[in-house]
Structure formats: C-alpha cells, structure tokens
C-alpha cells in the first residue's frame, strides 16, 4: 500500500469518535436508498401493466443510454481523482477534476433531457400509461439528484477558488463525492432494471 495517500478528517471531538458530518452523510444516503428502492420497486411492479402505448421496446435506445452510463461512470472516476488531488493539497488540480466531474454530470443530464424530449414527441408523457408514470418519476428523481450534485460540485469549485473552504479541503470534497457516487450507484441499478432487462409483452 505504498502508493496510497493519507487523508485526515477534520479535528472534531464527538461521542462516536467519527466526524458527525460524515456520519450524517451516510445516514442520509441510507435514507436515499429507501427512497430509490421504493421508486425502482414501483417501476418493477408495473412492468408490462400498461394497456396503451408507447411501450418501452418501441422507444428505448439502449446504445444511446449506454453512452450516458459511460459518461456517469467516468464522472465517478474524475470525482475520486479530485479527492486524490485535494489529499495531496494540489488544489488547482482538484478544481480542474471537480469541473470535469460537473461537466460530465451536465452531459448526462443534457442527454436525459434530450431523451425525455424525444420520448415526449413519440407520445410518452407522464400521464400516457403506467410505464410513462413510473419511468418519468424514477428517472426524473435521479436526474434531479444529478442536478443537485452538479450544483454542489460547482459551489465547491467556487468556494475553493474564493478561499472559503477550510484548510483541509479534502473533507468537503469527500462529502460531495459520497453523494456523487451514490447517484452513480443508483444509475447502475436503474440502467439494469429499466433499460437492459428485456421488457415484457404489452398487457391487454
């Protein structure tokens, strides 16, 4: 493990011996698991239950969504590279990786907006059928989370640039990173459940 880097949590005396901010972040992510677990389960529950189109197999473009998945995966890599730079106190490089992460996130959200728009033009709205409702709610919630993550990343860059972050900049980067990676793991599940698993024959 000679090529690893060290990172100290900010000095904070707590009854658990753990930084409260990090503990709170993990608790928040645990609650988010339940939120997305419920949304994904609802989507699965109504798979193939739509009686009118458009149906998933008519509108999904797996190749297009795969590219979006690669973009989000790449953003997770740039996020951890930002953390490594912060741990090495190379803050200019840290900001560069954070901006790269935000740009990749923006690309993902832009792709999702384009996808939603094309689905809308093909007749799939949130009220069209059960598929439309569950699909837009699930992927829409995820998209909102990515957007919030982008805002957090850009805020972090702005604060770092303005010198408004604490001396140990690695800690806030790690906290935002936890949120960002969570968004990524949610997409890993959504990509499999919604897009890759073959859709059942239409009901009725």
């Amino acid at each position, binding site marked *: 493990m000679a090529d*690893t880097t060290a990172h*100290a949590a900010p000095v904070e005396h707590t009854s658990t011996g*753990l930084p409260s901010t990090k503990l709170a972040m993990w608790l928040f992510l645990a609650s988010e698991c339940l939120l997305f677990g419920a949304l994904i389960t609802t989507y*699965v*529950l109504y798979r193939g239950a739509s009686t009118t189109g458009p149906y998933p197999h008519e509108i999904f473009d797996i190749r297009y969504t795969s590219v979006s998945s690669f973009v989000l*995966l790449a953003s997770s890599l740039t996020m951890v590279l930002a953390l490594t730079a912060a741990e090495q106190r190379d803050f200019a490089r840290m900001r560069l990786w954070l901006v790269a992460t935000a740009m990749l996130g923006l690309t993902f959200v832009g792709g999702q907006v384009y996808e939603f728009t094309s689905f809308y033009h093909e007749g799939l709205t949130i009220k069209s059928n059960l598929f439309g409702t569950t699909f837009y709610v699930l992927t829409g919630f995820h998209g909102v989370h990515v957007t919030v993550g982008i805002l957090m990343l850009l805020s972090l860059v702005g604060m770092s640039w303005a010198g408004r972050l604490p001396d140990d900049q690695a800690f806030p980067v790690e906290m935002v990173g936890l949120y960002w990676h969570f968004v990524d*793991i949610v997409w890993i599940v959504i*990509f499999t459940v919604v897009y890759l698993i073959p859709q059942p024959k239409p009901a009725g």
Partner: protein
Amino acid sequence: MEGLDEVRGDIGARGAVEPGETGHVRRRHPSAKEYVRIGVILVVLTTLEVWTSYSGLPHGLLITMLFGLAFVKFALVVLWYMHLRFDDSRYSRFFIMGASGAGILFLVVLLLLKAFAR
C-alpha cells in the same frame, strides 16, 4: 477510547491507518492509479452488460447475469470510490441498513409477484 477500533483496523485488508497529530486517525485511501484501475473494470463490466442484453441468452440466465454484473459494479463503487472498504465499519453498517431495506423490498416484489417472469 474514541476511535480506538479505527486504530485496531486490519491494515492489510481494510487500508492502512495511522494516528493523526491530534489523536484522530488518518485513513489511507487508494491512489489515483488504483482508482483508474477500478474505473477500467467498471467500463469493462458495463460493456459486458450491454453485450449481455443483446446476447439472446435464455430469460432466466439473462436476468441473473445482468443483476450479477450490476451487483459487482455497485460493490466496486461503494467499496473503493466511497471508501467503505477502508473506512470505519460503522459507516458500512448505516449504509447496509438502508441498502438492505431497499433490497428486501425489491426482492419481495421480485419473488412474490414474479415481476421478471413476464
């Protein structure tokens, strides 16, 4: 003693630890090279997922493979990029609590309602 179990951590298996200047514990995170290695594995697994979805495998095998690949990707991100492999085990417990709640709900629907049998 606060944070004592962190210092007792198995250095080889869970990432090296060293006491900080103020008695708090420094935990070692993976290097950039290791992060890139994990990134490459994730890209390979995603490519394999997409290939599997087009492979025309029998339905049951296809679903099992896709869920298996998604699980491995999920675990890699959580353990390496989110550092659960290296951090205090109490963070893992919190996360497992939430994730297993979601997983149990999903499995109930999957198995009882046979959602993927259609």
